[in-house]
């Protein structure tokens, strides 16, 4: 009803109303701006500090913009014999990449029969592995560590990759997507003599590209940001970047310029990746929660 009467208004009145409405939104807009500044301030302060010579980091009055901008902090931490930023970055990239690739492929291959085939024990196995999601992660810490010792996997990439691979969240997710694919295509392909492996990659996979990409991204991030586990199973040059910057930081306790340079190196790649693929990031994040259907 309201829309009908509004449509009948003269256009000048409508314009005024719209302008009014925009003015009423002004406080909300300003509040959002203030919050945005507060949210960005820590990241800005990190970057700003990292470009200051050490003496300026604690200068009063506060230098919001570096008065004498310098790359000195970055040069020094790259040159430091104990800091192996290139190696640490590679460790993180490699283990997160392999972890993400392996988990996505394993999730697809495992979810496939659980969603698409009939066989004895299917539901029992599905519920069995699914119920493992209830086990709190802390339970695994000590046994996994002792297993790594026994496998001789301390300070290896294996320790960073394999223990997390059989997690069932990805299987659960992929199974849900498999269930939504229409059966007709699959049946037609089967009549043409395609076997289950061909059906999986030719018929189903095209439907699964988006969820696979999202899951891959999500697992990559989870591995990249992992903290507790890599802190204890890998040391020295085998460390992952986010863990390494804290151990490296203990050497530079008070020189915040270098600390912030280290933090920036560890976060800028992922910040840039986020800005390019934020839709997938956000979707990946909400995938861990509930699907809003």
């Amino acid at each position, binding site marked *: 009803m309201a829309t009908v009467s509004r449509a009948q208004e003269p256009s000048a009145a409508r314009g005024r109303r719209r302008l009014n409405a925009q003015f009423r939104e002004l406080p909300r807009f300003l509040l959002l701006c203030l919050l945005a500044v507060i949210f960005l301030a820590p990241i800005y302060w990190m970057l700003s500090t990292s470009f200051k010579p050490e003496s300026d980091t604690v200068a009063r009055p506060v230098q919001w913009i570096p008065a004498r901008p310098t790359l000195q902090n970055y040069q020094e931490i790259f040159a430091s014999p104990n800091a192996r930023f290139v190696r640490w970055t590679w460790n993180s990239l490699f283990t997160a990449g392999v972890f993400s690739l392996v988990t996505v492929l*394993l999730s697809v291959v495992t979810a496939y029969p659980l969603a698409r085939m009939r066989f004895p024990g299917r539901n029992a196995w599905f519920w069995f592995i699914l119920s*493992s999601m209830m086990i*709190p992660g802390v339970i695994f810490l000590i*046994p996994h*560590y002792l297993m790594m010792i026994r496998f001789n996997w301390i300070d290896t990439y294996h320790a960073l990759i394999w*223990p997390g691979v059989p997690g069932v969240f990805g299987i659960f997710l992929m199974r849900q997507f498999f269930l939504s694919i229409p059966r007709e295509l699959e049946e037609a392909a089967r009549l043409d003599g395609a076997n289950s492996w061909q059906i999986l990659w030719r018929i189903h996979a095209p439907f699964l590209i988006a969820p696979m990409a999202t899951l891959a991204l999500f697992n990559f991030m989870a591995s990249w940001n992992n*903290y507790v586990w890599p802190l204890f199973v890998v040391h020295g040059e085998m460390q992952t970047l986010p863990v390494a910057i*804290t151990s490296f930081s203990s050497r530079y306790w008070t020189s915040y310029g270098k600390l*912030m340079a280290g933090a920036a190196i560890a976060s800028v790649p992922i910040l840039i990746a986020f800005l390019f693929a934020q839709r997938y990031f956000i979707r990946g994040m*909400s995938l861990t929660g509930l699907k809003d259907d």
Partner: protein
Amino acid sequence: MTRRRPSRFGARALTPYLYLLPHAILFLIFIVYPVGFGLYVSLHRWNILADEQVFVGLQFYQRIFTPGTPQFQFFWKTMLNTLLFVAVSVPLLIVCALGLALLLQKPIFGRNVFRTIFFLPTILAVSVMGILWKWLFENRTGLVNILLEALPFAKALPFLTTVGWAWVPIIVGTVWWTVGFNMILYSAALNNIPKSYYEAAELDGAGSWNQFRFITWPMLSPVTLFAAVTTTIGSFQLFGQSQVITAGGPLRTTQSVMMYITEEAFTNFQFSSAAAMSFTFGLLLLIVTAFQFRLMIRDLGRGNA
């Protein structure tokens, strides 16, 4: 289909199991076995260097529940610290997330930019977030204290080394770091509330508070429940923030139970004692994770329908 021979049919019956096999092997090695192995470790006095491990029964569990032992003292102290963190951070992470989502509910200039900015911190590693907030709250030179000194009615506080105040950087940092995640959940749910509900309420003369009270809030209750449960699980596992910002200090007042368990294992090399604590703490967490599991199953039922 007549050309299908019995032998091939037999092979086909195996097909689904072959798909399941790779995951099943890893699942047994890294999920099923460690639960049993962890329990076994907690019932022995584990020595990495020894060939034979001494069975001690429930001794390490008893220590956790016997007043006077260091394990009792520190386990429950850090458990209380963790509970305090959960009790403060979870409501904050729910209320702030809902507030941000509501601010962005109606279209506004730059809405997507704001949403991106609020979400941005969640992608940082916990160590980066920790270093950042330690620097911001640094006793003399931190930005927060510099700003406090500039205010007429406030003065600088040695946050990082004062009992009680040391929680402030940890909690503020955590809210900044993870609120975007719950905000996204709320935003998605707000989108799903039919506009007609609000239009009808407006016709009935309901103000914005009543619209929130009687439409928005009840419609959001499944998300609130979900966010509360997942945030609680996350907050219970507090580790990196305390480790990096305060190192558990001062006087262990910000040490979390996860930190204490890792200290017992990797500093004191008391793996059995740490395993016993993991199971004790894990059993407590199981109450929350089982709840989360039920919520997920409900979702699963909907997906099947």
